[in-house]
């Protein structure tokens, strides 16, 4: 017989009283040892793993770096206050190269290799759109800190959320009245020729029309372009406002060339801060922007009326009054967007607590708990301002800032209200199966 040594004989315990006592003593000792107490409940006390899909390289790299800094600061604060459901939070970072194909691979890697609880963090709209199907297939909750209308348009899937930053459609709608009333009625748009730019192209004209103003020309610029002068003759002479929104490393050139083309005799300028994120307003050639206006999600420069929460947030992420890294005035942050990482992590915390989240098997519960959220109050968890959340379209709505360039700084001159940016939902993610 094969089992003549009794290997498979279950009736035989092989445990003497002495070894049993030793084992019990050792177990008790481990349980009492410092730092080990939390793990005595096994898996439910292991850290919650958040996969961070970061633009470490590629054209989004400057954003990626600051998104990482903000995330690290938020996770530090969350962990110091006891973590989520009593568990510490651990962030695992993978570089997506600001590339949609690589983005989808990274989501897959988080799901199968790192086995993270959720994926979080990405900004560039083409990466979000490229990665969303992978998140859906892996049933992986995917919290993006992007800006495009792709989440709210319900073109993605039930696992994709944007709860920490408003979308372009909402931003434009809330700012159009200010543009029409203060800058001018005849607007020429200059925008990047891809997804994020198309949101601006599609939603500005109706928003301005509702205010009695009009878009008289739309100029799309390929994302790889590095020189812009050749597009400027397309700007009609009767233009009163140039509305510019550009991303990537070439934006400085864009503004400089606009300055050379027009000199002091220029139309009004209204820009999305994306054009100048991580760029020092006092860079050579940018004097031309003096007196022009920008949209900012969260103000780069400290303002006189900043809330205590805003001040605490700025200190935590390590930016000074000029929005640059503390100790390095040349390292300018992406302040208008990166607050979204901080706020999104607190939304994740809230949703996980509401869902009683324990592990990947509760992902569907997490999705439903997130969809059940309705509002986030302004405070340490939401320093940018109060927000409402529409669970049907997975999108939050908040306030916007319009700032004027004055003496090399941005000064907030107008804050919109949440209601200004609300629109009819275009669909309903909650009808999709989980």
């Amino acid at each position: 017989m094969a089992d003549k040594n009794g290997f498979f004989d279950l009736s035989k315990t092989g445990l003497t009283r002495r070894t049993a006592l030793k084992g019990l003593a050792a177990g008790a000792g481990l349980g009492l040892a410092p730092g080990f107490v939390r793990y005595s409940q096994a898996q439910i006390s292991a850290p919650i793993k958040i996969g961070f899909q970061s633009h470490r390289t590629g054209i989004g790299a400057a954003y990626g770096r600051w998104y990482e800094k903000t995330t690290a600061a938020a996770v530090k604060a969350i962990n110091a206050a006891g973590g989520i459901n009593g568990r510490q939070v651990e962030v695992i970072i993978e570089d997506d190269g600001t590339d949609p194909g690589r983005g989808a691979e990274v989501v897959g890697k988080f799901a199968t290799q790192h086995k993270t609880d959720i994926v979080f963090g990405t900004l560039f709209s083409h990466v979000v759109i490229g990665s969303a199907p992978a998140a859906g297939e892996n049933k992986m909750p995917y919290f993006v800190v992007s800006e495009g209308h792709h989440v709210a348009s319900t073109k993605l899937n039930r696992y994709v959320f944007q709860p920490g930053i408003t979308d372009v459609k909402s931003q434009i709608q809330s700012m159009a009245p200010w543009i029409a009333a203060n800058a001018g009625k005849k607007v020429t748009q200059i925008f990047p020729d891809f997804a994020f730019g198309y949101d601006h192209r599609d939603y500005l004209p109706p928003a301005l029309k509702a205010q009695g103003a009009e878009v008289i020309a739309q100029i799309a610029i390929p994302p790889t372009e590095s020189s812009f002068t050749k597009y400027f003759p397309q700007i009609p002479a009767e233009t009163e406002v140039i509305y510019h929104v550009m991303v990537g490393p070439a934006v400085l050139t864009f503004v400089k060339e606009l300055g050379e083309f027009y000199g002091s005799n220029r139309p009004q300028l209204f820009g999305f801060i994306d054009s100048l994120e991580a760029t020092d307003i006092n860079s050579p050639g940018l004097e031309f922007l003096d007196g022009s206006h920008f949209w900012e999600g969260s103000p780069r420069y400290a303002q006189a009326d900043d809330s205590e929460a805003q001040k605490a947030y700025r200190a935590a992420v390590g930016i000074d009054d000029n929005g640059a890294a503390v100790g390095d005035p040349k390292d300018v942050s992406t302040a208008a967007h990166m607050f979204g990482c901080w706020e999104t992590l607190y939304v994740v915390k809230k949703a996980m607590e509401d869902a009683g989240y324990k592990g990947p098997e509760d992902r569907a519960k997490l999705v439903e708990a997130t969809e059940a959220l309705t509002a986030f109050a302004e405070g340490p968890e939401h320093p940018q301002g109060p927000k409402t959340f529409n669970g049907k379209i997975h999108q939050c709505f908040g306030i916007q800032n319009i700032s004027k360039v004055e003496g090399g700084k941005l000064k907030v001159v107008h804050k919109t209200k949440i209601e200004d940016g609300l629109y009819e939902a275009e669909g309903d993610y909650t009808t999709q199966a989980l």
Partner: protein
Amino acid sequence: MHFGPHLLLAALEGLVTSAVLALTALGLSLVFGVMRVVNVAHGEFFMLGAVLAWAITTAIGGHPALGFLAALVIAPLIVGAIALVAERLVLRRLNYNPEATIVATIGMLYIIQQLALTFYGPEARPVEPPFSYRILLPWFGYSGYKLSVIATSALLLIATWLVLTRTRIGLVMRSTQYDSETAQAFGIPVGRVYAGVFALGAMLAAIAAVLIVPISQAHYLMGQDPLLLSFIVVIIGGLGSLRGTVVAAVLIGMSDGIISMFFSPTLAKIIATLLVAMVLVFRPQGLFGTASR
């Protein structure tokens, strides 16, 4: 804007592109012409020039012209030295084998790019132009600096041509290009000529980058576009032909400026690519190249 001024602006923009492109492509063309090495890392030497220009102008304070002139001298020298080291350490050990050097220079591309990302960072950083004079035309303003780029590039191209055709260095290079074995038999140190040519090619790219950096900015990914355009120029002009390189650079630069202004930038790229295809089909040696022996 009326047609005349519109065309003028398009032509000016096209000329700036041509000027910088001619210098960059010339470096690529020289390296291939003499060494038969397709230097895929050429765009990264361009990027290094721009990044170093930023570092040098930042280190040297005072009037922007001081820093810029220093960059114009120092950056190409540093890039040349790096290229020299790369040539000695890598290309020579591969015996300039065409297939092996392509793979090796692809490797160099990634190494240089990632080192730039590590030490310089992902941001695009501006360099102040040596002077910022805005030429005021009746219809629009134009950067005086951009015009000076065209002039500087033209002077440098003439200087390179004089070196190649009128000096002993040029003679040695041309003889190595014509037949390296016979040149070696006549006592020409072919190995050292190769090293020098590779460094010179990289330096030309670096100079082009220093000239362009006050117009655009220094960014660690900026090497890709000039590499691709340089390949287009070199294929159209004919490898190793200085005249062909200049003519093709002007052709590509101007067509890019004019077509992308009146029609669309995408169409300009399509036409450039189509031109490459046509040249490869009907005149594989390029417009001014000589058929290989």
